[in-house]
């Protein structure tokens, strides 16, 4: 267990080119001891590169990595005390489940009693106790993934357990249980867990802190709630949440309001210092409501589609050319083709050049 500092790290896979393309642009970040982090982003955004830099499988083109203030940048993976779980289960086919779990300890010449004790403890946590004597290759894909995970957890001294989309092969029901399990493990052993995923639900339910990445850039680091309610860029707004955030091109109106077509929308943001170009208004479909007795921030729309998702209804509406989506309570009956939607000012986010004001 350790505090991990990533200091001014960047990486390119073609450093010899005249104009190298960066898989990771320079960034600095600290991962606190014992916390759960999720790295979230679309495929090819540099998540795995970042993970491999921490585990030492890749040496960064630039920058330093510190574990508890000790520089490990040029240390090999073997000596870094890190553990990594890959997208697809990696097990030692010729060994039993027990030997698989014991392998990292055997390689480090632990005593037999200690190995036995650790393997027992980890196998209980992961519900693998009854399979210990079975050949590992006979297990199902998700059990195999548990073994991979177990090999990471069996060492008490690991600085962090890094997981690269580890639950891809596991069915949804078990996924939920395992995520909870991971949380418990984190609370019990105080192991730093870093979890790479492109699934926002996974990231939201798992992590204390979410790191959102796009095209080699860290776009936002924060709590799930912040990412959801105050996305720092339009990308985060678009990427997190389902459906994506409603975003409209707007004109500035007053110091705290904007104009969409002819409709004036008040916000709680001070807009006095902004120039009137490339302004967008963003609001989550969860916060767009059918108006009852509100008198301002009302938008008159035509209903295009009503989809019933069981626990909510999704309204797809049009205001001129703009599409507005709204998640509403499924008990609400919509009788007309036209309704008025209400945008609560405190939930409206204003962006200039795709960055939150």
């Amino acid at each position, binding site marked *: 267990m350790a505090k991990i500092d990533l200091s001014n790290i960047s990486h390119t896979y073609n450093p010899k080119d005249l104009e190298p393309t960066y898989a990771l642009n320079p960034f600095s970040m600290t991962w606190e001891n014992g916390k759960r982090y999720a790295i979230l982003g679309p495929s090819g955004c540099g998540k795995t590169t970042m993970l491999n830099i921490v*585990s030492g499988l890749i040496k960064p083109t630039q920058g330093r990595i510190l574990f508890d203030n000790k520089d490990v940048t040029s240390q090999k993976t073997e000596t870094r005390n890190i553990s*990594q779980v*890959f997208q*697809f289960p*990696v097990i030692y086919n010729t060994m039993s489940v027990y030997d698989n779990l014991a392998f990292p300890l055997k*390689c480090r010449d632990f005593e037999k009693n200690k190995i036995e004790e650790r393997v027992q403890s980890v196998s209980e946590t992961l519900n693998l106790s009854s399979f210990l004597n079975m050949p590992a290759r006979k297990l199902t894909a998700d059990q195999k993934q548990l073994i991979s995970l177990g090999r990471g957890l069996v060492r008490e001294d690991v600085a962090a357990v890094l997981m690269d989309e580890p639950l891809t092969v596991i069915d949804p029901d078990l996924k939920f249980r395992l995520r909870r399990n991971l949380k418990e493990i984190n609370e019990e052993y105080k192991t730093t867990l870093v979890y790479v995923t492109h699934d926002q639900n996974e990231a939201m339910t798992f992590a204390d802190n979410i790191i959102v990445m796009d095209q080699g850039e860290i776009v936002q680091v924060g709590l799930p709630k912040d990412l959801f309610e105050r996305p720092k860029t339009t990308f985060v707004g678009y990427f997190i949440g389902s459906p994506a955030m409603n975003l409209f091109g707007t004109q500035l109106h007053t110091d705290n309001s904007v104009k969409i077509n002819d409709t004036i929308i008040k916000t709680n943001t001070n807009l006095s210092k902004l120039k009137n170009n490339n302004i967008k208004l963003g609001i989550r479909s969860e916060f767009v409501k059918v108006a009852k007795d509100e008198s301002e921030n009302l938008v008159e729309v035509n209903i295009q589609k009503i989809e019933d998702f069981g626990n909510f209804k999704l309204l797809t509406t049009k205001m001129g050319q703009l599409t507005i989506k709204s998640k509403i309570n499924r008990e609400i009956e919509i009788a007309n083709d036209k309704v008025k939607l209400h945008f609560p000012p405190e939930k409206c986010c204003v962006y200039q050049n795709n960055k939150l004001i």
Partner: protein
Amino acid sequence: MNFKHKYVFLFPGLFVLIGILIFPIIFTIRLSLSGWNSYTPEMNFIGITNYIRLFTDDPRFWESFFRLSFLSVTTVILQYIIGFALALIVWREIKFKRFFRVIFLIPMMTTPVIMTVIWRTFFHESLGPVNDLLGNLGVKPILWLSDPVIAKFTVIIVEVWQWTPFMFLLLLAGLLSLPKEPFLAAAIDGASPFRKFVYVTFPLMAPISIGAIIIRLIEASKIMDTVFVLTSGGPGTATETSSFYIYIKGLREFQMGYAATLSFTYLVIMIISLTIIAKVLTKLMIKE
């Protein structure tokens, strides 16, 4: 698919298949039931007389067969071990990797018969450079080609030299196609190079290894040119292999009927034994 003219399109392929495979086998079977030799060069019918002769009165064939088994198994095992080692060396990031990859392939690109002539010159007991060099080191001349036991090992040396590159090539292709993750995981688990090889590389390479070993066994069991040029089966019959013996019976003594019997029996034994070997290897090496 119900397509009327499919046989028209299949015909060229079938024709070649029948011409080069089915017909020769059937013809060989028929020939093996005849007494065709230089005195009576005709396709008469003598029943299974040739087979009775083979199984009751021809120890030389069986000796040559067991000799062949020994030679092919030994050479293939050596080729596998050396080929695997070489493949592992150039699989890693080493300097001049490409250069070594090409160098290791050179023996395979040479003409076997010509190379064997060169080897024969090397091993010539009084004029060859090998004994000359050994003599400088104080070693007595070794009877590379005329001692019944040593001659077998000379054949093995030449075969291993000639065909290890093929094994190397197959195994290197296999190594390069392996997934990265198991090796990364082993590195993270802190496995030593030895453990990595035993628990990761070797199990992952098992299917490819079996393929390579079987291909080489099939090739090695046809061993003929090396023996023909190097020792002509001698001294005596000390290095005579099945194919060489069949060649002697058929194309030197012109006992065509009997040679066909030997060929067909040899074919059946090879099919059965290679099937068994493949099964056993699969069972031993692949744990699925």
